[in-house]
């Protein structure tokens, strides 16, 4: 016993010495929100704010080049083998040290994606109250539902041998590797999960492999990460990163100016100039993997006619909106697709052109007589949302469309069915580099758009099923094009506005690049201090 105590003494004295010798700086980042669900478990926190943080503490088998072209990069797997249309095998990166000090194993992978973490054990739940969290380890029902939606055809995950895992799907799926890039599929420590007190405790301190480990989480207040010095990708350049929640944009900018934080996220475009007037700061950011769209309710008496919907799209000058409201700092995508789709990207596709004359002609053909079209809108849930809506209402008015803006308080009011539901704002995140991860997910059978009975098209739905199951790449391109023709031209279900963008103000003397998505990358390859 005595020896054990004495053995601990050198470590006791060494710890402060090590801390003193660690000269790496501590970063402070002001965010509007840390986590909507007050958890850090990715299937529970499927939000923009959650996407921002998850790459810091958790990684997938296949990563995403967030600061580059958004294409897939090797992460926790070093090699991928397609065995057939239903089966993929991964060779794991050897020697990856997790935050609990263990080396990542194939069992961790099987647990993280095919096991109790995402799909539970099927234990009975009490109805009408929270069942997960403080009582046991069973994930919340919405976690399981999200997991099923993310990996709809997954049959099992097999441990083939040391460092080799095999994913077997029930149906052919060429998107399986891309689905695994999503943060729902991050690899976490099975041992840490099993040792957790309960699901909520686990979800607030998930043990992953990322460059930083969760040190302290004070919901709605702050989240502190510490460097994971045994990170496989190199020693992180910051000793600690502290995210502090500052809901007001003006307060975040003030905190940056007063030196209390080094980064301030979610800067409105109209404040970029005032931040950059100070030579010590700059604003970074650009278009991200999310597209702002306008959804049509085709059961509305006026919008039932596709000619009216097409006219609405032709009436909008997207370039003018991007130029005036976004200072030109975002892009207009070619329909609901991004270039990182690679071989599925249709370069010759485009949105309906801005053509007021064509809009008027379509309205005449439709027999439109100025009947009101309701436009339900939230107050700046999306950046620039209200101003954008007001500009569009005027553009529609210019071609003779009587669109009436109705400000709502929340999504329930926006989505409530009835004769006053017409047009609404929405956005679509491309969760992986394939139309299945955006067009099918958001507009296909079972999607929010169709479940809410805003739009449906039998031919589109049949093509969605084919796009999900087909392994013929040339055929998939044809199917994708036809789907866009239906939903963006012939029977519009939505109209594309522009690519969403996010802006981060920061100290100019910190070398750092914003990503092309929500995640903030603070690894050694993207963060530096001093000259």
């Amino acid at each position, binding site marked *: 016993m005595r020896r054990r105590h004495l053995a601990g003494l050198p470590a006791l004295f060494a710890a402060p010495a090590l801390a003193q010798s660690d000269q790496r700086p501590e970063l402070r980042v002001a965010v509007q929100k840390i986590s*909507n*669900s*007050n*958890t850090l478990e990715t299937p529970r926190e*499927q*939000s923009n704010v959650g996407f921002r943080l998850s790459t810091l503490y958790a990684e997938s088998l296949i990563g995403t080049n967030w600061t580059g072209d958004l294409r897939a990069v090797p992460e926790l797997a070093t090699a991928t083998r397609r065995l057939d249309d239903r089966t993929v095998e991964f060779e794991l990166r050897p020697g990856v040290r997790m935050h609990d000090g263990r080396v990542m194993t194939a069992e961790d992978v099987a647990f993280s994606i095919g096991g109790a973490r995402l799909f539970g054990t099927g234990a009975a*739940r009490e*109805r*009408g*109250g*929270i*069942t*997960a*969290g*403080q009582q046991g380890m069973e994930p*919340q*029902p*919405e*976690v*399981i*539902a*999200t997991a*099923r*939606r993310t990996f709809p055809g997954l049959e099992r995950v097999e441990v083939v041998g040391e460092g080799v895992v095999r994913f077997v799907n029930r149906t052919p799926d060429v998107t399986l590797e891309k689905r695994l890039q999503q943060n729902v599929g991050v690899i976490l420590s099975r041992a840490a999960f099993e040792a957790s007190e309960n699901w*909520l405790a686990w979800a607030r301190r998930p043990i992953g492999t990322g460059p930083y480990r969760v040190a302290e989480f*004070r*919901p*709605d*207040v702050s989240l502190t990460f510490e460097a994971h010095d045994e990170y496989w990708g190199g020693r992180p350049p910051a000793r600690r990163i502290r995210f*502090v*929640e*500052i*809901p*007001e944009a*003006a*307060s975040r900018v*003030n*905190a940056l*100016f*007063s*030196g*209390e934080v080094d980064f301030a996220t979610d800067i409105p475009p109209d404040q970029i100039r005032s931040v950059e007037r100070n030579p010590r700061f700059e604003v970074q950011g650009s278009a991200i993997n999310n597209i702002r769209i306008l959804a049509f309710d085709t059961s509305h008496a006026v919008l039932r006619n596709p000619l009216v919907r097409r006219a609405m799209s032709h009436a909008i000058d997207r370039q003018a909106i991007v130029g005036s409201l976004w200072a030109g700092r975002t892009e207009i995508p070619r329909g609901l697709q991004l270039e990182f789709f690679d071989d599925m990207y249709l370069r010759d596709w485009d949105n309906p052109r801005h053509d007021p004359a064509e809009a008027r002609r379509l309205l005449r053909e439709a027999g439109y007589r100025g009947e009101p079209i309701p436009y339900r809108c939230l107050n700046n849930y999306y950046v620039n949302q209200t101003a954008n809506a007001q500009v569009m209402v005027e553009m529609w008015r210019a071609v003779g469309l009587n669109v009436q803006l109705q400000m709502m*308080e*929340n*999504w*329930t*009011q926006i*989505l409530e069915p009835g004769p006053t539901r017409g047009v609404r704002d*929405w*956005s679509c*995140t491309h969760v992986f580099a394939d139309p299945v991860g955006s067009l099918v997910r958001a507009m296909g059978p*079972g*999607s*929010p758009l169709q*479940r809410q009975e805003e739009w449906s098209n039998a031919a589109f739905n049949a093509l969605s099923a084919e796009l999900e199951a087909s392994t013929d790449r040339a055929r998939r391109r044809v199917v994708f094009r036809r789907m866009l023709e239906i939903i963006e031209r012939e029977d519009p279900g939505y109209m594309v506005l522009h690519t969403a963008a996010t802006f981060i103000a920061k100290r100019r003397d910190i070398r750092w690049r914003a990503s092309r998505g929500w995640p903030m990358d603070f690894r050694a390859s993207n963060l530096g201090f001093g000259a």
Partner: protein
Amino acid sequence: MLRFFTIRLLRAAVTLTMVVTFAFLVLIASGDPADIIMGSDAPPEAIEAFRQAWGLDRPIWVQYLSYFSAILSGDLGRSMRDGRDAIVLVAERIPATLALTLPALALKLALGIPAGIYAALHRNSMADRAVMVLAVAGFTIPSFVLGLLLVLVFAVQLGWLPSGGQESWRHAILPVITLGIGGAAVLARFTRSAMLEVLGQPYIRTASAKGVAWRAVVSHHALPNAAIPTVTIIGFMVGSLLAGAVVVESVFSWPGVGRLLVTAVANRDLAVVQCILLLVAATMITANLVVDLLYGLLDPRLRSGKEG
């Protein structure tokens, strides 16, 4: 006295029931927590699973009865955001809020009452006018404007104080001043009015005519009689100690009950909102009860139920 307390308690029970019912109906009717908490990008299956887990797919009256019976048995429910007990979540935030509102209350009393008395005793002087101009400015400037102005000057320009957060006592200075100035201004105006009314009463003239020193007239005759309206206002201030800093907590990113309330209302996190409302209502009722008792102490005529 027993009758007095019984009537007050019955009134309190009715008030609390109305608060719970009104808040429940407004929150449920104005938004589905599943849509709001899960977000617009959540898979429909996940939203449906959430609804079922929380019983939100049941008829509203079933939800209400189930919730109300739980409250009667002492169960204030759990947060739909993270599954923790609502009472625990709220209790965690109370110290942070009191750390702002108690010093702010002290500031209001320390500034407002002497300023009001001084202004009344120097009626129509330059000092009186200056105090009243400051008081009008103090309670007409919205607290979020004042807060941001203070941040701009003392945090951004001068760099003397932090602009937000709750890491040290220095972080509390600007929010306490922001909260304190508005309340002090209100107290100054009420105290001045009450003092002026009392100073015009015949018994003040009588005391002065009898040769009582002016200082004694003010402290023994004017101040106690002018205290009743001031105590009423202080009672309101004490009653709003828990939820009186909603805006200031947001501006200064102070993690108190007010910010929790904003988040909970936005998310339609019913149990947390109800828990805060119940606490606020209970505090307000208790403060009013104490004020009623103080009236009796300050004015014996009210104690005996006789008119003067």
